[in-house]
């Protein structure tokens, strides 16, 4: 039932506004709205009941184990939410003067410092609103760097074929063409192919390490050298930072620029699709180009004073990327999370995320599943290929994924990375207990059994969810994107 279907003209949540008509209006009559607005007409109880009911139709971290590879679905501390929701922060206008913004600015400044520390970068700008916008900022800086150097022939960005879709899409947003670099059977970038691909047209290489194959790129130093020698820069996609938090710094690996997904590594909740925050960190070469605003600190009469740095302070900046300053509230949460963890806690993130993934990989291999990279250490995630099951049992990765829902587990990421056939990318994160991991492995084992004995059951899964498998073709063909009374 849609909210519109319980709507009834004349009904309204009257406590939520003071009934009011225009007085002495200066609005031109010709410009007045004549049609109804068309929002639902419902009571407060109806709204509360309706959305409480809808919420129950979602899986979530608070409800279920959610081993969605590349997405780092870990516990979102409620304390971080409480910190960000302090009344003084919620009511602060984005354009409030600096003298009544010292609380907020100091949190942002501190966060910049922590992020520099964990990434090994020289400067951090917090402004990008998600990973993809961080990527944009990063590649735009690469471009600004080459442009400033008059190096206008560099038109190409290299991207391993295992990469996330945002990488090539971003390169195009920055006016580059994309050249894919193959990945070896072991999940590493093919260095020979890379050597063959670089050249004077190379603006840079975008990659993540650990890669989306769930393995650490062992030749990263050599790769960095190859790209740098060719005059290109190295972009680090920080979506997988959770794997190495406190263990390795992208700056030390030779990366010139990176983004972080705070909504992943820094545990800010994903909100059913966002919001996120995708700060960018830069090394020496790109420092002059960081997006604005960033927060500076100076000492005035012995007191710390925080202030906005803008184009005046950073003349070569690629500029601002949002109306104000990114997803401020998410940054406050990440600050809170960083404080709760502290330096020791951050070390443990990478450690236990890795422990959990390797444990699961080992156990799943023992249970008869095929690891895509059996000779490699898993990092914080690992890839299982269901191609054998698909071939022999006619039960594919998606079927397993859907059947997991019936067992009360969210499905892993399916069919990504693209280069592994029938891929399941599994990321348990450090906040899940051994019991939870064992439960998942047990479920997978049972589903495998089902796939052998009653494959139809698995293929028609899920059966316990609010709806069964949906007709995606119909959705796309008979586009229905907004409700009409006739529906």
């Amino acid at each position, binding site marked *: 039932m*849609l909210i519109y279907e319980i709507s009834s003209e004349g009904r309204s949540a009257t406590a*939520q*506004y*003071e009934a*009011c008509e225009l007085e*002495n*209006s200066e*609005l031109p009559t010709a410009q007045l*709205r004549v049609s109804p*607005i068309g*929002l639902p007409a419902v009571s407060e109880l109806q709204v509360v009941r309706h*959305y409480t009911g*809808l*919420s129950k139709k979602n*899986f979530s971290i608070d409800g279920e184990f*959610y081993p969605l590879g590349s997405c780092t679905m870990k516990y979102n501390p409620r304390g971080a*939410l409480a910190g*960000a929701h302090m009344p*003084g922060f*919620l009511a*602060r206008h984005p354009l*409030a*003067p600096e003298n*009544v913004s010292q*609380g*907020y600015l100091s949190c942002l400044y501190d966060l910049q410092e922590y992020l520099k520390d964990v990434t090994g970068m020289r400067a951090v700008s917090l402004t990008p609103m*998600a*990973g*993809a916008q961080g*990527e944009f900022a990063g590649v*735009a800086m690469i471009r600004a760097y080459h442009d400033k150097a008059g190096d206008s022939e560099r038109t190409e960005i290299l991207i391993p074929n295992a990469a996330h879709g945002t990488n090539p899409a971003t390169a*195009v*947003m*920055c006016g580059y063409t994309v050249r894919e670099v193959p990945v070896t059977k072991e999940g590493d970038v093919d260095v020979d192919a890379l050597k063959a691909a670089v050249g004077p047209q190379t603006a840079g290489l975008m990659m993540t390490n650990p890669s989306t194959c769930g393995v650490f790129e062992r030749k990263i130093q050599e790769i960095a050298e190859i790209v740098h020698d060719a005059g290109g820069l190295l972009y680090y996609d920080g979506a997988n930072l959770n794997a190495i938090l*406190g*263990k390795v710094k992208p700056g030390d690996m030779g990366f010139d620029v990176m983004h972080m997904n705070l909504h992943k590594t820094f*545990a800010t909740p994903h909100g*059913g*699709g*966002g919001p996120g925050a995708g700060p960018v960190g830069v090394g020496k070469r790109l420092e002059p180009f960081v997006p604005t605003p960033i927060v500076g600190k100076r000492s005035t009469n012995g007191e710390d004073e925080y202030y906005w740095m803008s184009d005046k302070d950073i003349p070569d900046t690629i500029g601002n*990327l*949002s*109306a*104000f300053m990114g997803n*401020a509230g998410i940054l*406050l949460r990440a600050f809170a999370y960083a404080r*709760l963890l502290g330096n*020791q806690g951050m070390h443990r*993130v990478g450690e236990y995320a*890795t422990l959990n993934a390797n444990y699961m990989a080992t156990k799943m291999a023992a249970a008869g599943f095929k690891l895509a990279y059996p000779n490699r250490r898993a990092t914080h995630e690992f890839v299982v290929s269901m191609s054998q099951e698909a071939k022999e049992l006619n039960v594919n990765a998606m079927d397993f994924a859907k059947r997991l829902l019936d067992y009360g587990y969210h499905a892993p990421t399916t069919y990504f990375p693209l280069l592994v056939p029938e891929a399941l990318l599994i990321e348990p994160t450090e906040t899940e207990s051994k019991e939870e991991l064992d439960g998942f492995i047990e479920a997978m084992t049972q589903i495998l059994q089902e796939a052998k004995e009653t494959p139809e059951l698995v293929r028609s899964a899920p059966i316990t*969810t609010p*709806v069964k*498998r*949906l007709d*995606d073709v119909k959705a796309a063909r008979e*586009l229905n*994107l*907004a*409700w009409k009374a006739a*529906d």
Partner: protein
Amino acid sequence: MPFVPHTSQDEELMLDAIGVESIEDLFDEIPPALRAGVLANTPAGISEQALLRLMSDRSKKDEVDLCFIGAGAYQHHIPSAVWDLVTRGEFMTAYTPYQAEASQGTLQLIYEFQTMITRLTAMEVANASVYDGASALAEAILMAVRANRKSKSRNVLVPGNLHPSYLSTCRNILHNQKINLQVIPYDQQSGCIKQEDLQAFEGEDFAALVIQYPNFFGGLEMADELTTWAHSQGQLVIGVVNPTALALLAPPGTWGDTGADIVVGEGQPLGIPVASGGPYLGFMCCKQAIVRQMPGRIIGKTLDLDGKVGFALTLQAREQHIRRAKATSNICTNQGLLVTAATIYMSLIGDQGLRSIASQSHNGTVQLIGKALEIKGITRRFTSPVFHEVVLELPCRASQVLQQMCTQGILGGYDLGQMDAALENCILVNVTETKTPQDIEDFITSLRAAVEVAAC
């Protein structure tokens, strides 16, 4: 170890199962030279108790009594139910609804959001949000360039009274794709774009015209005329609108001859606290004919195996995770939770509520203007009618006056000198339904005193 549930026994069992001695061994593929030491610039962890005390102390530094700044972020009453529901774990800690069967809550809600936004704007289709109003406009311009079959131009007309941060955001995002924004100067008297000003651009090839409504100065553009003109020139029309204003004012789908083609805006006024500028949400609508050029997630209604109604992500072939380099945009994570807030807000407020809120905001603004104009030396900078925001010209530097007011806990408005030195005596003042007659009185008293102190 905050948030890590492993007991030492668990850890041992797990290491045994893997067949390694220690967690350290799991990092053996990383070249030793790369291994990081302690994080020297990150402090030790603190308890939640200490954290909340710290953040409470810091947040108190930022508290003021009254805020009359708008300029793209507006303080409205937010029904308590909104965030009580939004912060339910099932909404807040879910991922993007890739597994539709396990995400019907979020999916149906977004479908409802799309419906509400199309109705509010009188447009045909909407997406599930992009980052914010400014980036939504950048995406809309890209979209218009792709979608306009009549034009091959990468030039787009934008008004000089566009929100300055929107303009710079668009520039910064678009210039790498060689898209050129041609600024139309606004009329110095009305503060609006006049049709005469457009004549200079007639006959030239532009992919689209952007109209901000109300414009950055709070003024009401002649949206009908501008739309009809742009269409006559083969341009698409992109509306940038304030959703509260649309409760009273003609929605973009009805502008001019055939309505705007693409509409974007900042969804913050719909139940989202001003909160330092984010997270907000950029909404985005268009005509059905060009829906395949719209970036971002879109939810469609469909049926399940049993013929039961359900909702799913649709037209994913436009998106980066499928289309990669050929995608309409690189956007992935959007502002889902804020969509949740806006949807619940719109449900609670309804037509009557939104109309009342808009009326109260307008009435308060008119009231404030009237009283402010009684102060010696204060005039209204522009003649155009406004909705809930107005430019006042002071007899002295705005920055001085605002500083003075701030010492009394009142943020008196946005200093337009920051946008344009020619406006250094001007403030942009916003009034919403959150301001009582007494608040307006307090504002006036403070403004009067500040103007006097500034001794001009």
